[in-house]
């Protein structure tokens, strides 16, 4: 059977199940007796086994099979979960991930048998209380313990196959089959309600059954099933030489099957005269698959039991997978549209009064449509960071073992959404920061106890949205960064001179850590400390137009704060004029705009500041930063744009305000290495290029 078309589904689902396993193993480690967890692990392992089997990945199937066996025993309370076992399970998980990666890359599982893991699992099975029948019980476990066994008593309403009405042709075919010594079964299969590709599942069920028998009739019809025109169940009449158990097993080997109900159908054997006509009759029966008889019976027969469920479409969100490149194209087109719209707006302004109200109305309408369009496209590209951070709990657990430190990871805001391209890139830097925190940040348990801290160190990752940016904080409650040590090291390395060090603020010294090849760890470990780290983190974040900041307190821990722009392509901006040149400032970073008299500007440490409703705000003369003459006279009132970055404020002095505009961010190209204060360029309605000021770099 050609399964390649299901490879993608297989990979997606396998990854999901591996994640479930990973999560559940973590819980299991804390609560070895949690029956829900144990059941969940058993189910995931079982499903994985089934999927791997269907796809023909034998090694993966073997490993999951043994994991399943062990858990079957755990469920029966014959084996107790302990530390080494959880370790073993995690190793199995790594092996499974390896298989999955191999399959994803080469569509082959590789040839690592992982014998040692399988042997270790077997040892657990054999080590348990020596019951002679244990092996047999394990074999039977998937079937005996699976959910359907409980359902036997109430299977009457669910075994819908008995509502299939058989026409004369079918009766003849069945009769002939029975005459030949075959058995006839009715089968009703329930697909899990979370299943997205029901038709594919049904197809796999059909395939599985056809390997051991023949499907005479299905309800809904084969065509309807293919078109996904069924709720969550479908029934069939099957002729087979195998027994009921084998049939059930075959169906349950397909993943995402909730349950299956089977029963024997009593059919009078056909008269011997029928034998000669068999081929013809059979062909007729098959042609009659979507027979009118079956269709007619559908209405009446199906509705009765289906009433308790919501009729119609499933509640699961309907989704489409789209290549990210197609979204990029869409995004570019939206950008072009916005530029065209801006041109229209500026053209209409130049035309002056002649244009009527209707024209302006339409332009305003166009404006709201393009804005909504842009937002929708952006939303399509947004994904929660969950996909990236969900692998961290396991990583921290592994680190905790490796480093002999007790570490808890606290995460919040996993649902925070970011542009897809950013989420793909952010994983490594975050992982690096977490490793750093666990390795360098946290002290060893005995040091922690000496310092009166809880033995267990905390590493945290918090994500949240702040205006137009997303903030991700990664930190620990460990030692914090020793500024003096950094200073010493920096002087040793010749990064700075002793005199420079004298004049540097602690904050600046800490920032030296972001320089290439700078590691303060006294011991170089496997995990971090080779000096390739923070600088890579910083350049990665900066390439995403974001920034990193460190806050640290010796003895109490440090926090790395990453700020990333929510959108990469189109922003709302305030257009200003400085020295006759036009610049854009992202609206997201602007707090207020103030008209300040010259007398209100005070000097503190030779720097200009103003008092903004009780807060002292430093002022930045933009014309000086941009090295251009201001068009304002020395005694004019100052136009101050108050911008914020985190909790810091600054006032930018500009010449004129031009208004708010939606702008498309364009890169300045690689040839001009970004001037620090310019984050990009945009094209205005009249075709002129205006530069975008990076206020974060100014503060």
């Amino acid at each position, binding site marked *: 059977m050609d399964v390649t078309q299901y490879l993608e589904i297989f990979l997606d689902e396998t990854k999901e199940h591996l994640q479930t396993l990973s999560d559940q193993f973590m819980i299991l480690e804390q609560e070895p007796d949690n029956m829900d967890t144990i059941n969940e692990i058993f189910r995931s392992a079982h499903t994985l086994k089934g999927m791997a089997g269907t796809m023909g990945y034998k090694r993966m199937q073997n490993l999951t099979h043994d994991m399943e066996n062990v858990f079957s025993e755990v469920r029966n309370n014959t084996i107790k979960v302990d530390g080494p076992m959880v370790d073993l399970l995690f190793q199995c998980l790594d092996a499974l991930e390896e298989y999955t990666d191999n399959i994803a890359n080469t569509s082959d599982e590789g040839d690592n048998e992982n014998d040692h893991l399988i042997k270790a699992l077997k040892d657990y099975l054999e080590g348990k209380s020596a019951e002679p029948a244990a092996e047999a019980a394990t074999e039977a476990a998937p079937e005996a313990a699976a959910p359907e066994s409980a359902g036997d008593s109430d299977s009457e309403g669910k075994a819908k196959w008995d509502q299939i009405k058989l026409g004369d042709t079918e009766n003849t075919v069945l009769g002939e089959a029975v005459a030949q010594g075959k058995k006839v079964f009715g089968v009703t299969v329930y697909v899990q309600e979370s299943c997205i590709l029901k038709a594919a599942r049904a197809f796999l069920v059909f395939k599985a059954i056809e390997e051991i028998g023949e499907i005479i009739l299905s309800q809904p019809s084969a065509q309807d099933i293919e078109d996904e025109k069924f709720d969550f169940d479908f029934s069939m009449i099957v002729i087979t030489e195998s027994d009921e158990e084998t049939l059930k097993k075959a169906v349950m080997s397909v993943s995402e099957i909730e349950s299956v109900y089977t029963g024997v159908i009593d059919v009078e054997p056909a008269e011997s005269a029928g034998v000669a006509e068999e081929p013809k009759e059979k062909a007729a029966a098959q042609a009659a698959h979507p027979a009118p008889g079956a269709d007619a019976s559908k209405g009446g027969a199906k509705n009765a039991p289906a009433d308790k469920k919501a009729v119609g479409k499933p509640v699961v969100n309907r989704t489409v997978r789209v290549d990210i490149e197609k979204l990029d194209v869409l995004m570019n087109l939206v950008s*072009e549209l916005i*530029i065209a719209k801006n041109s229209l707006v500026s053209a209409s302004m130049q035309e002056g009064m002649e244009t009527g109200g209707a024209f302006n109305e339409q332009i305003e309408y166009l404006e709201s449509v393009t804005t909504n369009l842009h937002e929708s496209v952006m939303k399509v590209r947004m994904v929660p960071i969950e996909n990236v951070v969900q692998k961290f709990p396991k990583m921290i657990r592994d680190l905790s073992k490796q480093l002999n430190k007790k570490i808890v990871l606290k995460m919040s805001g996993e649902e925070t959404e970011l542009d897809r391209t950013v989420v793909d890139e952010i994983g490594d830097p975050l992982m690096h920061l977490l490793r750093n925190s666990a390795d360098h940040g946290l002290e060893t348990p005995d040091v922690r106890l000496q310092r009166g801290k809880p033995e267990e160190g905390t590493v945290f990752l918090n994500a949240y949205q702040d205006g137009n940016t997303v903030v991700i904080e990664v930190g620990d409650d460990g030692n914090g960064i020793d500024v003096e040590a950094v200073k010493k090291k920096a002087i040793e390395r010749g990064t700075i001179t002793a005199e420079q060090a004298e004049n540097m603020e602690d904050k600046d010294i800490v920032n030296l850590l972001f320089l290439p090849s700078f590691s303060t760890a006294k011991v170089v470990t496997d995990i971090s400390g080779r000096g390739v780290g923070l600088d890579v983190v910083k350049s990665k974040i900066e390439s995403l137009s974001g920034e990193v900041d460190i806050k640290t307190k010796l003895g109490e821990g440090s926090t790395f704060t990453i700020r990333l722009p929510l959108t990469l392509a189109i922003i709302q901006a305030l257009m200003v004029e400085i020295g006759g*040149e036009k610049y854009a400032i992202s609206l997201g970073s602007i707090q207020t705009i103030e008209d300040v008299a010259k007398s209100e500007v005070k000097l503190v440490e030779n720097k200009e500041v103003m008092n903004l409703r009780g807060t002292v705000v430093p002022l930045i003369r933009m014309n000086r*930063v*941009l*090295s*251009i003459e201001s068009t304002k006279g020395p005694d004019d009132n100052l136009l101050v744009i108050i911008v914020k970055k985190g909790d810091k404020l600054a006032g930018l002095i500009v010449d004129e305000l031009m208004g708010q505009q939606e702008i498309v961010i*364009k*890169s*300045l*190209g*690689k*040839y*001009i*290495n*970004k*001037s*620090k*204060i*310019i984050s990009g*360029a945009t*094209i205005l309605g009249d*075709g*002129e*290029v*205006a*530069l975008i000021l990076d206020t974060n770099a100014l503060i």
Partner: protein
Amino acid sequence: MEEIMDIQQQEEFEQVQYIVIRYGDEVFGIDIKYVDNIVRMQRITRVPNVASHIKGVLNLRGEVIPVISLRIKMGLEPDEITKTTRIIIIKLESGDSIGVLVDEVLEVIMMDSSQIEKVGYNSKETIASFLFGVGKDQERDRLISLLDINATFGDKEVAV
């Protein structure tokens, strides 16, 4: 073997088209394969705090492209914008586009390798490091300095 000979012969007399441009009285040639477009002088937006030979950026059909003054880069007098001033849009091997200010675009000529004399890099003049050779145009009895595009624009400029 014969084939190889053929190819060598072809290479020897390979014809290359050059766009001939003028800075003051001197003429330069740019291999046409690098030239994406030639546009009239248009509004250039200054980029603050970058090297002096980067004149700014312009909008070419929705793309933001940096504009370079080769005059300043080669240590000549700064550009004087006249009616004949053009911006040649050059596509570098890295895929980036840049615009180069020229006093005037004269014509396109064909030259084969026999007409080109390679220059050494021992010359102390800045200009020489931007050239890969000098072409002899017998027709008009003049010498054309051929610009080595990758040596001239290949390096990335760092903002101050």
